[in-house]
């Protein structure tokens, strides 16, 4: 049986590259066969926690972002979405798509664990703020489903298949902090340290550069040691030196140019609340570069976690987000702050969109944003009511071929159908059900394209 994916190691073995060079050969531009002609489609799912302020989030009317009445001019976007103004034509909001999954776990846990899986949590020992305790989700998440599909075909297989980014995700592995699952009981921890992610993406390249850069010194050292050895002992060192030389030749013979600029990260940024804006931007740079390099076509970016508690002092909000999200709608000050907080997330989404928009599509037409859809979502529709109705779904970009520049309002459909639609739009058209089949009734959500 053919393996599902051609591993990079296999590929290099076929190229006849020795294992010594292997750790230093980075970044084959893509495993995909070049020139298949099909445009790439990419999906980046961005998560921010604790619900939104509905009145400042949802467009007032369905349809194009235009004022009502006979003379229709572009309508002002809701406060929270305003940072996305430059991309209003690429913007699509979906209201009325609910997370209907029930079962064990509190609303935050189910909000998070069922958001991308569409299936119940297992019973377990994690007690939430209410309801019965629960464990992990009982199925895989849609990004992983799409990944499996893409990786199973040579023309869409990439080095990683998917990448899971995070920003200030707390260290505790529990139902609140995981939204990506490779299968039942198999949560994936996002990498929230940009240096660690950099190492995953470019470590081999850097090691290879490092190795090459010290070869002169190594030869000098070998010569010095050899000179001090008696003749009988020099034989083994000569053989060793010959091996170093052939390694050097292999390294340069298999030099692979990186098709894009490797991002340079600011050094010394530590994992602390106040560094959140910087970490976010570092991760966004790494997302853009890894998509440009075709390391993956599916990525997730998780800001903190469900019940996340960042203190966004840099926008003048000292209180923790989760604490604020419990304040009633009547608390105007709290709603203002939550609006600001969510607008900050929208700004990060907009920055990601901007970076993609200003990067030409490698080997294709237009910009990378034309071939990438950012999906921004949340585990709750609203923080204080912990509602699973009207889960925020904001799409930016042209990767999925949906018709943008408008707001859609559905009559309370289960979000499983939207997850299926995502898979179909990514080319995984054979997917008929996803998550709990009871919520997949009419198949993929229609009206998007």
């Amino acid at each position, binding site marked *: 049986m053919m393996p599902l994916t051609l591993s990079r190691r296999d590929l290099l073995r076929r190229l006849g590259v*020795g*294992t*010594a060079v*292997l*750790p230093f050969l980075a970044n084959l531009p893509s495993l995909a066969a070049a020139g298949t002609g099909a445009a790439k489609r990419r999906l980046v799912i961005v998560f921010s926690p604790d619900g939104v302020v509905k009145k400042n989030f949802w467009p007032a009317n369905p349809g194009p972002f235009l004022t009502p009445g006979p003379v229709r001019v572009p309508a002002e976007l809701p406060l929270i979405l305003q940072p996305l103004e430059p991309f209003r034509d690429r913007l699509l909001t979906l209201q009325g798509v609910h997370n209907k999954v029930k079962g064990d776990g*509190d609303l935050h*846990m189910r909000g998070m664990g069922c958001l991308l899986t569409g299936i119940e*949590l*297992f*019973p*377990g*020992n*994690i*007690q*939430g*703020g209410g309801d019965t*305790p*629960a*464990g*992990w989700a*009982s199925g895989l998440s849609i990004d992983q489903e799409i990944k499996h599909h893409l990786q199973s075909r040579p023309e869409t297989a990439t080095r990683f298949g998917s990448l899971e980014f995070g920003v200030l995700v707390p*260290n*505790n*592995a*529990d*139902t*609140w902090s995981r939204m990506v699952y490779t299968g039942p*009981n198999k949560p994936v*921890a996002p990498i929230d340290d940009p240096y660690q992610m950099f190492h995953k993406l470019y*470590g081999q390249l*850097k*090691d290879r550069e*490092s*190795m090459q*850069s*010290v070869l002169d*010194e*190594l030869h*000098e*050292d*070998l010569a010095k*040691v*050899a000179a*001090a*050895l*008696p003749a*009988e*002992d020099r034989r*083994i*060192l000569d*053989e*060793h030196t010959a*091996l*170093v030389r*052939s*390694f050097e030749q292999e390294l340069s013979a298999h030099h692979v140019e990186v098709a894009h600029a490797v991002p340079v990260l600011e*050094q*010394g*940024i*530590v994992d602390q609340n106040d560094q959140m804006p910087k970490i976010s931007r570092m991760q966004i740079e790494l997302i853009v570069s890894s998509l440009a390099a075709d390391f993956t076509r599916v990525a997730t970016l998780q800001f903190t976690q469900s019940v996340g508690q960042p203190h966004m002092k840099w926008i003048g909000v000292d209180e923790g987000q989760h604490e604020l999200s419990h304040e009633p709608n009547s608390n105007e000050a709290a709603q203002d702050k939550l609006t600001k907080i969510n607008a900050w997330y929208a700004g990060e989404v907009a920055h990601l969109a901007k970076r993609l928009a200003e990067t030409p599509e490698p080997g294709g037409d237009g910009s990378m944003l034309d071939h990438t859809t950012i999906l921004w979502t949340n585990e709750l529709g609203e923080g204080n009511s912990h509602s699973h109705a009207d889960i925020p779904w904001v799409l930016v970009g042209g990767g999925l071929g949906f018709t943008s520049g408008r707001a859609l309002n559905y009559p309370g459909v289960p979000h499983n159908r939207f997850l299926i639609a995502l898979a179909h739009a990514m080319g995984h058209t054979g997917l008929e059900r996803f998550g709990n089949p009871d919520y997949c009734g009419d198949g993929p959500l229609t009206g998007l394209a």
Partner: protein
Amino acid sequence: MAFSPIVRKLALLAFALAGGLSPWSPAAAVDPPGLTVYREHCQRCHGENGGGTPDAPKPLVGDRSVNQLAAYVDETMPEDDPSQVTGDAARQVAEYIHKSFYSAVARDRNRPARVEFSRLTVRQYRTVVADLVASFRGRGPGVDAQRGLRAEYFAGRDFDRGKSLIYEQIDPQVAFDFGIEGPDPERFEPNRFAIRWTGSVVPPETGHYEFVIRTAHSVKLALNTAWYEPPFIDASVKSGTETERRGTIFLLGGRAYPLKLSFSKANQGVDNTKHELPAHASIELLWKPPYGVLETVPEQCLIPHDSPSTFVLGTPFPPDDKSIGYERGTSVSKDWFQAATAAGSETAGYVLDHVEHLAHVKRDATDRATKLHAFAATFAERAFRRPLSPDLKTLVVDRAFAEAPDLDTGLKRSLLLILGSPRFLFREPGLTGDADPFDTAARLSFGLWDSIPDEPLWQAAARKQLATPEQIRGQAERMLGDRRAQVKLRDFLLAWLRIDHGPELAKDKNLYAGFSPEIAADLRTSLLLALDDVLGAAGTASAADFRRLFLDDEVWLNGRLASLYGAVLPPGAPFTRVRLDDGRRGGVLSHPYMMSVLSYTGVTSPIHRGVFLARSVLGNVLRPPEEAVAPLSPEQHPDLTTRERVALQTSGVACQTCHTMINPLGFALEEFDAIGRHRTAEARGGVEKPVNAAGSYLPREGPEATFKGGRELAAYVATSRDAQEAFVRSLFHVVVKQPARAWGPDTLENLRVSFAASGFDIRRLVVDIMVTAVLPPTFDVAQALPPASPRESPP
């Protein structure tokens, strides 16, 4: 049919036995026929040993095969009359020439022994990088007799020593069933308690360990991780019906790895008891060690002390050359180079990942550059086993940093350079002239630990306190107290017993219904415990009496083994020493593990047992059989005892050369069956035939010895000079990894004499080997060894 794999095995074994120091067996008393031909027809021109004469000055060396050489001799030699040496004679002389001095192998063997510049062996590479990294962390726990784990019991779900700690104790292992009511209803709520076990795990052997935690509640296992790293197994979320969590980890044997197991019986997340229903609570920590079976992690492998985490290299290496009986690094290959390069990269990567804690510098520290430079320089010194000259520092540190775009890259480059340097990868550049104290220190540390010098040894070298035999003796004795020396000695004994690779042990289910994989694993544990007994716990001053290896009549048994081997112990009893079979056991030689390994699945193998004794224990070189011989099947000769069958099988003249030595040794152990149970009779053809365990051995000097049964055999071996010689030679080579002859022809005999004088103390022997081997061969070692004393009597 059942025998076919064994035939192959026997043939292989016979060939494995062939690789010795000399091509001709001392058991073959007569000159090989080829030598006679050579003397008669060839020597007058080619000289003795092909050294040449004025008539034929070129040495008789070349690369023809035996067949080619025979054909050549047949047709052309002797030059004046080629018809004199043809056919069989040509073939015999070709074989003799080829083996004795002609072939590359023969030439290599005949070279005068010298200390050779060698690369690190695989074992050395692994221990060196582990210790190199460890040298920047705190010291590990000392060696003491305490076993088990520290256990803290908390009332409540959290591990809050200030608020909820109820008591602490040492738990020998983690295997508890608390029922519904919990550990103690008086002090704990049945549904709300937490226990934290901390300490270290000391795996007995190097290899992959699969850890398994069984519990239906929240649990985390931190294993060989630093406090800032995620746990090895995080099962704090209990989800669905999962009650078992597994993880596999590669560990170097005999080191202490930090372990912390945190168990909480309570719902996690929000602190709310509303949905906490009465539930059964149990927890067990198990592992499947290499060569073992799934078992509760045993008390003897747990210690209640913390340890720093250890860097365990994952890069696989090709195996070392072991063709002359010990691992050595006298050749390089592309495979090895590739592995070493990848290993250097892995090591550098690990250091970079942990650099904040190893170099004690924060990522945003202002003096980061200074600290990282200093760290790299210290790393280089330790890796090179000597102080760094200014020139070398410039080369491997300063230049690497100067050309790098940032500090991390600079450090990475410097580390790759250091780990790629011959100063790190190779050892023993020229053991001549004056002893450099740092070379001496490295010889000591590699000899005793397969690793780099530690701080006290380094300091001794820096103060030039490694010049006299007394100073070296002092250091060696200190270093023997370290776990790494214990591991090295134990691994040596396993290799000496030829069981270092954990042979598969399966027995005929009809004949030995009670023999299971669990029994096989227990037997190995039992033998390891016996070896540890002899060596004495690291850190103790008691003598490690070589003779105890043969004279100990107690065997470590647990409840499971006891029921099979006829001792009385409670079924679940832990390992304890039991005097078995009324004192008929003779140490490791008749240990049921050895007896099982040296048997077929259904019957004993006196040949395997005899070969093991003759070669490994008594140090004889045996030739392979002339041709692979299928053992006679017991079914073909239903009336013959095993002894009679083996005697029949090996009665041919060609066989007798070696089997006169092999058989009588193996026969003495016939009173132990194929799983090592004592027996007095063997069922043959429906009749119980008495076992004849009479045996004998003709030593290299002195009269033939006779003995009856394993006990008498062992008593003979315990005082046999042949056994002492073999042991001293094997230990010297495993410790030093250089030919003993390089230190002069009397080296081994001098050591044997001092071994005897010490009352056969293995630890003392190791010290003497170090005193001998760390000083240049020109040093008069005999004077450095203690004088013979009249302590050669049995203990």
